């Protein structure tokens, strides 16, 4: 072989090497282009790109395998690989991931933040993962860190199964791929962070909804554990509820746990002082065990370890100073829960809320039941007592009546007087019994109204007939006046008569000889108004509220008084039962006028309402919500005012023009014509501009109200004092 041929061979070799290098460069640049193009595409699948990177790297560097490791706490887990890797290798890595230390090229690359090569693992004294090596059979290892903002976000690694170190160009190539991989990882981690944030918020909202909407504690807690496990990508968890009486915890909800494990957990006493769960609760902070194999196991952890669990986090569920329970999250692999703790603490907070809610509800239910039972007992007692007392009273009243009626012969004047005393006392006791029974029925919610059609005039006549004898005896004039158009109404006749009779009996009782009692029935819209006016001594203002309470006869101090002290209380309760109001207008020396209403029993009347309560100032309540009208009406109960109602803006304007009320209490949101328009019209009309308007609304726009001329502005919910104060301020009371 000549010199030439030798040179030719050399040239040809050089040219072959050059050609190879050229081909490599071309492939490399093609791979880079491909990767960069994929990166630029919206919606590119980052996992696919990472797979491409691994595959190209292995191919271009002539490695048997390329792998990507992702840090998790202090260890690196295998994230992706080029395949062709023994399953046992993967399994072992899952169980014992690579440590961030010198025992592997991955650990070293991460620690030193540079490319690390082990030319032959058999000749590296520090190499510590011979267990892995024996499964994969590699000899030469190359690893390079993927670095973002000075942080290792992953490690790219390659191996060869023969001893053949990677040359500098191949090292460079891997480094270049690592840069590209890091970009993919960043994009992916941003996307993941966003998705997981959205997931977290969604889950928290879901849990919040459940906590707010269901009182089934088990359902809520199960949902919490479920979401907590899902969002932290862990494998299972449970909520342990704390039992103060035994100072220990028991499973209340679980997720990702086998029936076998649950059975075991249920049988395990999780003591507060000696378990991880207990210590977390006592310390009031999350505690974790990253590897159950390397810790002393309490009975709870022992059950978990025996079932194949490897790492556990316990987050206390606290409410103020109290321990409610512990949220336990676990994995089948080892590792810290570091980044998830904050989220899990939020879940623990939600659990606390759910537990507290459920307990309060439970207590409320128990209390309610107890009260119901107590109330039932009370009603039963009163009913039976009433019966037991009536039977002997029957004899007292009956026998005295027999003697008074001279059925068995004449009696003298003194005997007659004493018998009358016996008879009167008996009747009084009986009345008292009846009222106590009625009142207890109202209070127990057992009084049911039985509406039937009846004539108002006849019912009033009936009541007056009952007191006429006594009135005549004291020369008291009794008159009744039923306004035109009031005839038959549908209401509970018995209760109507009971209230009227109570009022007229009182009126006659407290009117001095020669005085007068007048009963009037009139209308207010569709409400029936009954007033009973007397010329008695009147009721001082300070007693006017008290007089409606049990056993308060005020200081009316009639000499012959004998009431039960329950009549007005009972009357008021009955009137409330049909949704009406009862009131008193009185001044000492000027007599008293008691009145009550039955709402909605009269036909709507287009005629101007006859002035009821005559000189009483009218308050017009305008609201489309019946409950608000009722409430505000009730607030005005007992005040010297008559209440008018309107349910929409048009009706309100008509009512104001017809009735000229002392004040208008106006909601803003109204059908037909809204409150702003009503206000504006009233203030624009010289005839109505002086009528004070109190806005009472849930609309928050005080400045608009005041600028339109409202005299006061109240936000719902409105308290009685607020309404009365406003009406006083605008001069309506």
């Amino acid at each position: 072989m000549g010199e030439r041929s030798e040179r030719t061979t050399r040239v040809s070799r050089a040219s072959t090497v050059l050609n190879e290098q050229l081909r490599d460069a071309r492939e490399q640049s093609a791979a880079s282009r491909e990767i960069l193009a994929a990166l630029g595409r919206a919606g590119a699948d980052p996992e696919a790109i990472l797979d491409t990177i691994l595959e190209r790297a292995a191919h271009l560097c002539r490695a048997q395998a390329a792998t990507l490791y992702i840090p998790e706490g202090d260890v690196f887990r295998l994230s992706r690989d080029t395949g062709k890797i023994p399953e046992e290798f993967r399994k072992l890595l899952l169980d014992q991931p690579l440590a961030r230390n010198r025992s592997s090229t991955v650990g070293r690359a991460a620690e030193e933040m540079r490319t690390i090569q082990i030319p032959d693992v058999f000749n590296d004294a520090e190499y510590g993962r011979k267990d892995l090596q024996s499964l994969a059979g590699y000899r030469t290892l190359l690893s390079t860190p993927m670095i973002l903002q000075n942080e290792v976000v992953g490690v790219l690694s390659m191996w060869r199964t023969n001893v053949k170190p990677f040359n500098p160009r191949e090292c460079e190539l891997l480094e270049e791929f690592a840069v590209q991989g890091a970009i993919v990882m960043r994009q992916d981690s941003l996307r993941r962070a966003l998705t997981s944030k959205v997931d977290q918020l969604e889950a928290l909202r879901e849990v919040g909804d459940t906590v707010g909407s269901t009182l089934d504690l088990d359902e809520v807690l199960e949902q919490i554990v479920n979401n907590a496990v899902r969002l932290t990508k862990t494998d299972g968890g449970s909520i342990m509820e704390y039992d103060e009486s035994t100072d220990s915890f028991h499973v209340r909800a679980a997720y990702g746990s086998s029936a076998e494990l649950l059975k075991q957990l249920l049988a395990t006493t999780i003591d507060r002082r000696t378990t991880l769960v207990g210590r977390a609760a006592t310390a009031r902070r999350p505690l974790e065990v990253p590897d159950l194999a390397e810790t002393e196991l309490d009975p709870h952890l022992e059950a978990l370890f025996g079932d194949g669990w490897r790492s556990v986090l316990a987050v206390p569920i606290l409410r103020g100073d109290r321990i409610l329970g512990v949220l336990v999250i676990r994995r089948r692999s080892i590792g810290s829960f570091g980044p998830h703790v904050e989220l899990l603490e939020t879940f623990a907070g939600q659990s606390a809320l759910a537990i507290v809610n459920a307990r309060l509800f439970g207590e409320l239910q128990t209390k309610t039941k107890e009260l119901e039972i107590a109330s039932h007992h009370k009603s039963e007692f009163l009913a039976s007592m009433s019966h037991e007392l009536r039977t002997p009273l029957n004899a007292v009243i009956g026998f005295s009546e027999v003697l008074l009626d001279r059925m068995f012969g004449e009696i003298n004047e003194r005997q007659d007087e004493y018998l009358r005393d016996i008879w009167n006392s008996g009747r009084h006791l009986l009345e008292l019994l009846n009222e106590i029974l009625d009142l207890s029925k109202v209070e127990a919610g057992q009084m049911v109204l039985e509406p039937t059609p009846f004539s108002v005039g006849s019912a009033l006549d009936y009541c007056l007939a009952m007191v006429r004898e006594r009135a005549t005896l004291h020369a008291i004039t009794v008159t009744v006046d039923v306004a035109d158009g009031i005839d038959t109404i549908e209401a509970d006749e018995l209760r109507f008569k009971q209230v009227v009779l109570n009022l007229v009996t009182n009126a006659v009782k407290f009117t001095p000889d020669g005085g007068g009692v007048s009963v009037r029935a009139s209308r207010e819209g569709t409400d029936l108004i009954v007033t009973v006016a007397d010329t008695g001594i009147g009721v001082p203002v300070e007693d006017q509220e008290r007089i409606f309470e049990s056993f308060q006869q005020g200081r009316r101090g009639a000499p012959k008084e004998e009431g039960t002290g329950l009549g007005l209380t009972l009357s008021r309760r009955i009137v409330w039962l049909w949704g009406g109001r009862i009131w008193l207008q009185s001044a000492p020396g000027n007599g008293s006028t008691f009145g009550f209403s039955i709402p909605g029993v009269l036909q709507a009347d287009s005629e101007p309402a006859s002035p009821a309560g005559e000189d009483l100032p009218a308050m017009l309540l305008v609201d489309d919500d019946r409950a608000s009208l009722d409430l505000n009406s009730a607030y005005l109960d007992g005040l010297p005012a008559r209440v008018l109602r309107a349910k929409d803006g048009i009706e309100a304007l008509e009512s104001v023009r017809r009735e000229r009320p002392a004040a208008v209490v106006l909601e803003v949101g109204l059908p037909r014509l809204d409150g702003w328009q009503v206000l504006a019209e009233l203030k624009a009309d010289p005839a109505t501009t002086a009528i004070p308007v109190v806005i009472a609304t849930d609309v928050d726009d005080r400045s608009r109200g005041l600028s339109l001329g409202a005299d006061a502005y109240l936000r719902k919910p409105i308290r009685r004092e607020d309404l009365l104060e406003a009406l006083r301020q605008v001069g309506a009371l």
Partner: protein
Amino acid sequence: MTARRVLVVEDNPLNLKLIRDVLQISGYDVIEAQSGEEGLRVAQQNPPDLVLMDLQLPGIDGTETLRRLRQGTLGPNVPVVAVTALAMAEDKEAAARAGFDGYLEKPISVRALPGQIEAFLAGRPSVQP
């Protein structure tokens, strides 16, 4: 004309005595019983023209006593009037449903009682105020 016979079933002896005395002085022949069972026996021996019956009785109550009375010798036209201290509308209804011809509320008015009995006997059930 023979006096009409009224059976009074009432467990309280004082009330029984009161009703008996008032009815007797008004010219009725009064027979009495202090329980439902006794009422059934007495009614069998001396068929009454009218029965006044307390609703709350020891042993079988007024409603059951009425049922057995109607099954036995008591003619369908003999009025049976309930007497009770339970002044509730639903009790009145229950009494009507059980087949009583009328209802007197305790305390009975001794002044009104003879007139009320007369009205029931004449087939004009009085209306209890």
